[in-house]
């Protein structure tokens, strides 16, 4: 009993530590990356390569006064940033980094991650509503409609994967992709004993990737904080650590999104060519490559419109992913 309790504590501490370190240093990576893309150095003063910038920023945010605007709903205003961070950390619990490094491998891991991901939309809604700011309310309405419309194609894509592998356990999904790049769910050919040819999986991967961009409110889908029209969107009224938690929550969500993409499509901890035994290194390399793509996209594209975003989801992504689901169901029936 005490051993399991210890396990839980270690898992939670590790999850929080991993989320916090990632959030802090992804901000640094994003700023350095943006600097490279924009031909400027980025933060390079504090410490070697500016590596002390995140602790300095964190310290600054923590020492600032938390101002609650007059007329704001105090409870919601305080709860919202916490609600942004907690689900993100909770999701780490069930993510398998390698066969050994997983806090709690559940047989409904996929479901749990999506349940927590939906809570993220809630925090934006509460933040916008609770801060009694017109820009905030507009932004949260946008963000919620965005979250709803992108969860649908994302879940349909995940259902396709679940049908393919026959399990909702993330560990099992990764194990089913062992052996090499041609066994990954990203690619249509499966050279396992049960030969399945699924030609639409690359498109599924794209849909999932676009949805995870939209789910994490990243550019070009960052309509919730469209700074050129809504000032700062849902976190307009937040300063101090309230803002800091939103910021860290965003980056933690990016890590979750990238990890999930790697687990579902890119073979998790397995070596791309099947030469080496799978370990956590491969997993992290894949995750950070995806995160770099997130950063790259953000600093390249302008923002979409809200109706362009909804059209993309309801008119293009959902029909295609539904068709893919149907195709997968048909393949399962035939073979």
């Amino acid at each position, binding site marked *: 009993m005490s051993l399991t309790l210890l396990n839980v504590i270690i898992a939670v501490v590790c999850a929080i530590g991993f989320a916090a370190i990632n959030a802090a240093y992804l901000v640094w990576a994003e700023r350095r990356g*943006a600097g490279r*893309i*924009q*031909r*400027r150095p980025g933060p390079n003063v504090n410490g070697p390569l500016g590596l002390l910038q995140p602790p300095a920023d964190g310290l600054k945010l923590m020492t600032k006064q938390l101002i609650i*605007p*007059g*007329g704001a709903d105090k409870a919601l205003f305080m709860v919202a940033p916490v609600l942004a961070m907690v689900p993100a950390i909770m999701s780490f619990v069930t993510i398998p980094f390698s066969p050994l490094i997983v806090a709690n491998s559940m047989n409904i891991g996929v479901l749990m991650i999506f349940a927590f991901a939906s809570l993220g939309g809630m925090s934006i809604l509460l933040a916008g509503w609770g801060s*009694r700011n*017109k*820009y905030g309310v*507009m932004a949260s*309405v*946008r963000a919620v409609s965005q979250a709803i419309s992108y969860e649908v194609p994302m879940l349909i894509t995940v259902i396709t994967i679940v049908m393919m592998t026959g399990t909702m356990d993330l560990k099992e999904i990764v194990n089913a992709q062992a052996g090499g790049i041609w066994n990954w769910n990203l690619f249509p050919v499966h050279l396992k004993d049960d030969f399945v040819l699924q030609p639409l999986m690359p498109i599924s991967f794209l849909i999932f990737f676009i949805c995870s961009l939209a789910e994490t409110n990243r*550019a*070009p889908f*960052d309509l919730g904080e*469209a*700074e*050129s*029209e809504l*000032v700062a969107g849902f976190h307009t009224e937040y300063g101090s650590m309230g803002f800091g938690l939103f910021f860290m929550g965003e980056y933690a969500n990016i890590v979750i999104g990238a990890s999930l993409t790697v687990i579902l499509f890119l073979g998790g901890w397995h070596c791309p060519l099947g030469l080496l035994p799978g370990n956590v290194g491969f997993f992290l390399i894949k995750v950070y490559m995806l995160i770099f793509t997130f950063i790259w996209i953000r*600093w*390249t*594209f*302008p*923002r*979409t*419109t*809200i*109706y*362009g975003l909804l059209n993309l989801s309801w008119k293009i992504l959902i029909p295609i992913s539904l068709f893919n689901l149907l195709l997968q169901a048909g393949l399962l029936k035939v073979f």
Partner: protein
Amino acid sequence: MSGPIHIQPGETFTLNVGPQHPATHGVLRVKMEMDGEYIVKAETVLGYIHRMHELMGENRTYPQVLPNLSRLDYLGAMGYTHGHVLAVERAAGIEVPERAEYVRAIMVELNRVASHLFWFGAFVMDLGGFTPLMYAIEDREYILDMLEAVTGSRLTYCYFRFGGLYNDVDDDFVNAARAFIPRMRKSLKKYDALVTGNVILQQRLRDIGPISANMCRRYGATGPVARGSGIDFDVRKNEPYSVYPEFDFDVPVYHECDSLARYKVRMDEMEQSLRIIEQGLDKLPEGPIMPKKKPKIIKPPAGDYYQAVETARGSFGIRIVSDGGKNAYRFKLRSPTYSNMHLFDEACEGMMIMDALALMGSLDLVIPEIDR
């Protein structure tokens, strides 16, 4: 600021965009009556940076007023001082040496490219793309360095004098300008590939923010805004001044009337400005930069004088009514963005706020120039 807000269905709310807002690029305030994300009615409110330049023009002598003109539009200041010196030269009958005229044209066009570059970056930033701003500023920096070496200032130039120039250009400037042209052409190609061809940008600008030619005429809109609506009017061609008739250049006109058309007009104008600079550098004659005979105190004979020039934002007009004294009796500035901005109230009705702000970006507003 306490108590719940009760908004009934169908009720609108007022959103104050500005005077401090990232999209207005200055202290412009737009009172928007919103129905959710849709604008029911918009009203632009001015006066936050009014400095009475016109009255100052009446209280000071003509040379004293000259620096004021470059404080109107801090991005394309050269064009505005050009208007003033041309107006006073016309009024006082001062001859300008040919070399000075050519240098002026080169300077104005360089400044136009710099202004459009900054607009390009800021506009794409309005649409949410941050990186092009940095690229544009890098190119603009090159121009500003060139202009600084000759004029001594980077933004608010007071380089033109009645009758000529403050300072002659040297070989360094000519070489730098020659080197700049191929560099800028390369950059324009890059912007075309990186930004203009982008699907998201096209989707955000095409058929968004329609401004008809009729509307342009009603509001007196000029410059790229009018040319994006199919009005083929450019003061440099239609009422030529200075040495512009000597140059071979086109006036880009688009008939789509949307934000994309205005965007393309400005991008094409940069290319045309480069052509003018190229020809100006080739034709640059030797000679003095100030006339031999010039009155010490400028006292134009009594009369009514008007001079229009094409600045980066449209046609800028100066009306000087002189009573024969050292100061102007009446000094009236017709600034292009003032007219262009008032389009916004009518054009943005019924639009969503993000499209409306894209439309506002495509008008290229510089607030100190509207308020004067």
